[in-house]
């Protein structure tokens, strides 16, 4: 039930207090937070830097434009509606077209255009934003589900969280939605976290609610066989986010699109600590060596940083096999 603190320290587990003081407060200047807390800003910055993100269909910025929704969405078969300042997947609606003024949600329920308009109106009034401030609704193209992942997620698309420290990808995990997590990819709500090897993108270890699991609880798919394509490309995109935002300690949420490959979904300036459980490894064992790097090494371009990280952080388990 309990583990001794010196055991945690020995294994380099990063605790909440140390994360807040030694990593977030130290490496993430406060004035840069708005860049990642607003998805639209993140998206525009990322596009400038050549990082792929889901295509933007339109944005709705004021209540007046809500009535133009039908017209702006005329040509779209499917789309995602997101609040720009939402966090933790709040207020995100994934819809496919059913008829002229009806849409199907990810869980199969049908909603009308009127429902959609009300949802967008709620987003604008700040229902889902941090602190209830007025917000903008972003409408994006849907991500084409990579068929590799079809058995691994209950509703929702699995995303890959990469922790990037000073531009080096240090740890990664895939988050799979489950029935218990209600289609959301948050670990504390019961999603499955699969630790991924930085060198190869192969699964290391999977947990749900702090317990090891071998198979997806809803689909029964063996998690060991998970395969992430374009792994190095994905890590390089994530590593690039360091230059884009200037945030030293960063969580990049990536997805794999069937046609366009790895894409950036959103960034997080306060990434959680559960990734350590999913990987079975402490973050400090990887953060400390990077803190000791010389300024020259820290200024390597993204692809070189990824290369170095892959050689340093390759999992022993997989190498031995």
């Amino acid at each position, binding site marked *: *039930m309990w*583990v*001794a*603190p010196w*055991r945690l320290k020995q294994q380099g587990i990063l605790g909440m207090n*140390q994360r807040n*003081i030694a990593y977030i407060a130290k490496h993430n200047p406060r004035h840069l937070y708005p860049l990642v807390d607003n998805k639209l800003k993140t998206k525009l910055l990322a596009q400038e830097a050549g990082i792929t993100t889901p295509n933007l269909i339109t944005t709705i910025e004021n209540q007046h434009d809500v009535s133009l929704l039908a017209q702006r969405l005329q040509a779209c078969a499917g789309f995602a509606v997101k609040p720009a300042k939402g966090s933790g997947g709040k207020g995100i609606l994934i819809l496919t077209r059913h008829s002229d003024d009806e849409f199907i949600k990810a869980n199969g329920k049908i909603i009308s255009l009127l429902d959609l308009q009300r949802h967008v*109106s709620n987003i604008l009034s700040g229902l889902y934003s941090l602190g209830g401030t007025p917000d903008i609704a972003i409408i994006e193209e849907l991500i084409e589900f990579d068929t590799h992942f079809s058995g691994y997620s209950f509703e929702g698309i699995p995303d890959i969280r990469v922790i990037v420290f000073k531009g080096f990808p240090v740890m990664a995990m895939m988050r799979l939605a489950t029935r218990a997590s209600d289609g959301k990819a948050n670990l*504390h709500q019961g999603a499955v976290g699969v630790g991924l090897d930085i060198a190869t993108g192969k699964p290391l270890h999977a947990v749900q609610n*702090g317990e090891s699991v071998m198979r997806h609880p809803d689909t029964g798919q063996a998690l060991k066989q998970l395969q992430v394509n374009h792994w190095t490309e994905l890590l390089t995109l994530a590593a690039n986010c360091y230059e884009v935002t200037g945030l030293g300690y960063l969580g990049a949420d990536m997805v794999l699109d069937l046609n366009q490959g790895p894409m950036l979904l959103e960034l997080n300036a306060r990434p959680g600590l559960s990734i350590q459980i999913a990987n079975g490894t402490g973050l400090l064992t990887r953060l400390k060596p990077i803190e000791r790097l010389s300024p020259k090494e820290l200024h390597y371009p993204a692809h070189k940083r990824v290369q170095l990280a892959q050689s340093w952080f390759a999992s022993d388990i997989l190498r031995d096999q």
Partner: protein
Amino acid sequence: MRLHSLTPRLPFFLLAGVLFLIGIVLILHRHWVYEVPLFYGETQTIWSVEAKIEFQAQDEPVNVTMSRPSNQKGFTVLKEAAASPGYGLNFIDGTQPQAQWTIRSANGKQVLFYRAEVLVSDSEDDQVIPAPRIPFVSLPQPFDDAANTVLANAFATSSDNFSFTRELLKQFQTPNPQQPIALLQQQYSDQMPQLIVDMLHKAQVPASLIYGLQLQDSRRRQNLIPLLRVWNENDHEIFYFPTSPNDHYKIKKQAPLLLWQQTGAPILDISGGQQSDIHFSMIKREESTFANIAQNLSSQYDFLNFSIHSLPIEEQAMFQTILLIPIGALIVCLLRILIGIRTSGTFMPVLIALAFIQTSLLTGLVGFLLVVTTGLFIRSYLSHLNLLLVARITAVIISVIAIISVFSVLAFKLGLTEGLKITFFPMIILSWTIERMSILWEEEGGREVMVQGGGSLLTAVLVYWAMNDPWVRHLTFNFIGIQFVVLSLVLLIGSYTGYRLLELTRFKVFK
């Protein structure tokens, strides 16, 4: 490497250390120089009681006479002072101690203060107070006959003046009084004390209407309680009047009673003024005997003795609570940073704990749970209406006030006067709590609501225990240095980078 990471922290640890030292020095200074005891209990209790007289003067000579407390069994009056700009002041001693304020001309609202420092001591004996002359009393019919019937009943079942009085009061206390009692109660409902004194006089029992003040720590705007003193030859005894639900005073049997006026004279007599009002504030202090003497010797507070005690009593009572808040906040820091308890709203538990102090713990807990649960139900309906945030919270605030009103009335009708204390809850804070919990419920599910709600309540209870502890109250109120010590501790806790207690189970897979 190690040194490099330590050096920038050095000024910080110095700052924390200096703050800590300042705190300790201030505490010791107060302890040694002013003889304030560090330990609660080995002291004598002093009550500072302040009377505040307010009235409208009418541009003519004003003469205000107020009864003053005198030495009595259990209490010694140490020191008296009065603040009254422009007024002439005279303390009249004798059998009827009074304070008299006079001014040639005054206009508009006038405020006069009288303050007495009263020492709790057993040195005073029961005073000999002569029985008053019994005046002739006659009530109008049919009340006179009713009174005679009641008196005859009491007379038949008693043996002396004391038992006679008890029997008489008992008849007024029964829930379903007999017809003559009911008649008298109806006619004299707002002058009950005077009626009973008159009836005793009618039966040739020497009695007088006196007033006392119940001493409860940190109370403001209190009123005097009418009491009955009855003589049996040379002995005399004090009786409480039966209270009715409409009374503006409530008797707490456990609170010590300071007799303010012992002779049947009026409490306050004002000529040249209207709309007069008098109310009382009081505060309890523990001090060593030497300090009392020292303070008595120099009625001037010297500048170095920079303490809360130089403020008026009403403000002191307020500060006593304010100075406790850092202790509550310190506990929140400990629980969140060292233990890892999650609460809804960082310092919401401190505010809830402050409400618990007013309501008592059990009543507070039950009230809090009732209001929040009902509020969550109402809020879940509101969320269907798709309201804008500010309007929704306003609606929740109004609902919370409605809930509190309904529960108060319900509790009162059911005879649970404890239920009335629910009004002490900070309503805006409760509304935000309900709003936050409701959003949490929608987004993270009921489990997270239980975790955070439970965490908040647990924190509130712990904070309540700490803030209600007589030791903590004694130390925070008497030693301003404690605040520096708390500040230095908070700084140190704020730089703690080790694991939280609950992380030791969160990361249990790393065993």
